[in-house]
């Protein structure tokens, strides 16, 4: 086993194992270093590439950091008003039922201003996929408290920590929509480690494939970081996320093939 493979021997087309998906554009993403948005974008791009559905996919971007997602995915995209992406997606899917339609929304977008659109799209059982990025904060506007901000968690509008007596409780909207008859697949994943990236990719793939079944809506929550908003390094933020976000937002499937999974 004593060989002298040099880098030049290895770095050849025939030895390629992984490269950025061609469904991603060459644009440099504007996200902060270590932000989970980029990873989530690439997962979606890879699934579109693998399913060979680039020509049949329409994505709807939110308001928030991911507003410019259309600069990074080489697919047709629409940019919605804050919280309204599920309404746009509803019309797109109903007018073009043969297409694959997804929304990509943050927690402020999906769980605060867009709660009505989210719940009703879920309840109507629109045959779309919702990818929900939950970092517990309004990232783009500078780290304000979101509906998902944890109790006692600091943000720029809860500088002494979220006081639930005064500011209300965080909202587990994913568990909430799982209760609705229109959702077919509801899961919570993450993208901070290779293992979770692989799990999330399976979930995203399932969410796209479910659209063919016409049995309802698939929602994939991705618990993610906002290291700038949380004022931590990317690596610290991922650790903080596991220690603090995961107990409140535990990863795993919540509803599979239209059936709630029991907790035990």
């Amino acid at each position: 086993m004593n060989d002298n493979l040099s880098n030049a021997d290895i770095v050849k087309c025939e030895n390629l194992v992984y490269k950025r998906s061609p469904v991603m554009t060459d644009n440099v993403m504007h996200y902060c270093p270590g932000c989970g948005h980029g990873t989530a974008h690439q997962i979606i791009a890879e699934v579109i590439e693998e399913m060979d559905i680039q020509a049949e996919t329409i994505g709807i971007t939110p308001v928030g950091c991911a507003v410019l997602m259309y600069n990074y995915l080489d697919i047709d995209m629409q940019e919605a008003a804050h919280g309204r992406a599920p309404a746009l997606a509803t019309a797109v899917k109903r007018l073009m039922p043969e297409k694959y339609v997804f929304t990509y929304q943050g927690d402020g977008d999906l769980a605060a201003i867009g709660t009505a659109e989210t719940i009703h799209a879920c309840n109507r059982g629109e045959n779309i996929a919702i990818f929900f990025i939950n970092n517990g904060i309004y990232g783009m506007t500078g780290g304000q408290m979101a509906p998902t901000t944890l109790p006692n968690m600091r943000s720029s509008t809860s500088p002494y920590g979220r006081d639930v007596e005064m500011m209300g409780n965080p909202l587990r909207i994913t568990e909430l929509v799982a209760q609705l008859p229109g959702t077919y697949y509801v899961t919570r994943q993450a993208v901070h480690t290779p293992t979770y990236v692989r799990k999330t990719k399976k979930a995203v793939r399932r969410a796209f494939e479910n659209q063919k079944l016409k049995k309802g809506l698939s929602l994939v929550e991705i618990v993610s970081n906002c290291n700038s908003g949380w004022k931590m390094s990317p690596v610290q933020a991922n650790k903080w996320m596991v220690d603090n976000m995961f107990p409140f937002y535990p990863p795993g499937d919540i509803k599979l093939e239209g059936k709630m999974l029991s907790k035990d």
Partner: protein
Amino acid sequence: MKELKLMKGNEAIAEAAIRAGADGYFGYPITPQSEVLEYLMAEKPHERTGMIVLQAESEIAAINMVYGGAACGRKVFTSSSSPGISLKQEGLSYIAGAELPCLVVNVVRGGPGLGTIQPAQSDYFQATKGGGHGDYRLIVLAPASVQEMADFVELGFDLAFKYRNPAMILTDGALGQMMEKVWLREHKPRMTEFPAWATTGKTPDRERNIITSLDLDSARQEEFNLKLQAKYNKMGEEEVRYEMTDCDDAEFLLVAYGTSARICQKAVQLARKKGIRAGLLRPITLFPFPKKPLKEMASRLKGILSVEMSTGQMVEDVLLAVNGQVRVEHYGRMGGIIPSPDEIADVLEHKFTGGKNYE
């Protein structure tokens, strides 16, 4: 096949949309326009033409469904009444900012707030000056009969697609609820080819299509604002529509649209019986507003009376058009009250010729 029917204004809009080849309608109930949604649900256009109809969870959702559908290059529309149209302003601003075609019907009721369910023309400013945030305009059509309610659906779609801009039919509860005979056009097939900018899926032969109203670069955003402005100016040159009655020898001009214009038709006759040479200019497009005919007529007129079911909104556009060349007065009724022809003729007489004191 062309058909003659007796219909409510709201129903005529719904039927005309099916026949105009509309692809989708997204609505939410509100008086006095709920018949649009009710008629469409009962009519099952999905079976007739493939057009989809959906009752949304709110006016906000409905206009954003229109946004998504319009972004696919489809002929989509929504309808509502004043309070609901206020909720749609955010979506309309995005649609205008993304340069998408769509049709919105406002069957106006009196306000502000919950106001009344009776007819009014108090949403003129909102309709013609933009309505939502940012520099934009809607193409605004003002029907004065059930026939025009039907006809302006297709016209609205055509103008919306021509300019990639939302169009609005600004009507009121009286026209929406009124029954008249209406000629309905034969069915126009739905589109099978869609505009090049539509988000229908990125095929290998083209670049991806992006529908957005966002541009963080100041210079580019300003350039875009100027582009929109140029579009509105072009509408002003090419799309102004109006109707003149007894204007050739008129000394006094009534300016009124929609329901008010119908009343003013009669008021012109009554005024002439009193010996007042009155005429009527009825703007059909409220944006672009018929500034030119008003400006041209102004110097030979002795007075203009703008009649509206509001405290005076269109009168400001009349004033701008005549630019001080002639005296302009306003007469309005509010709260769902429609003025009578006698009342208008008396006001005209009193305000300009010192006749019977009208209170």
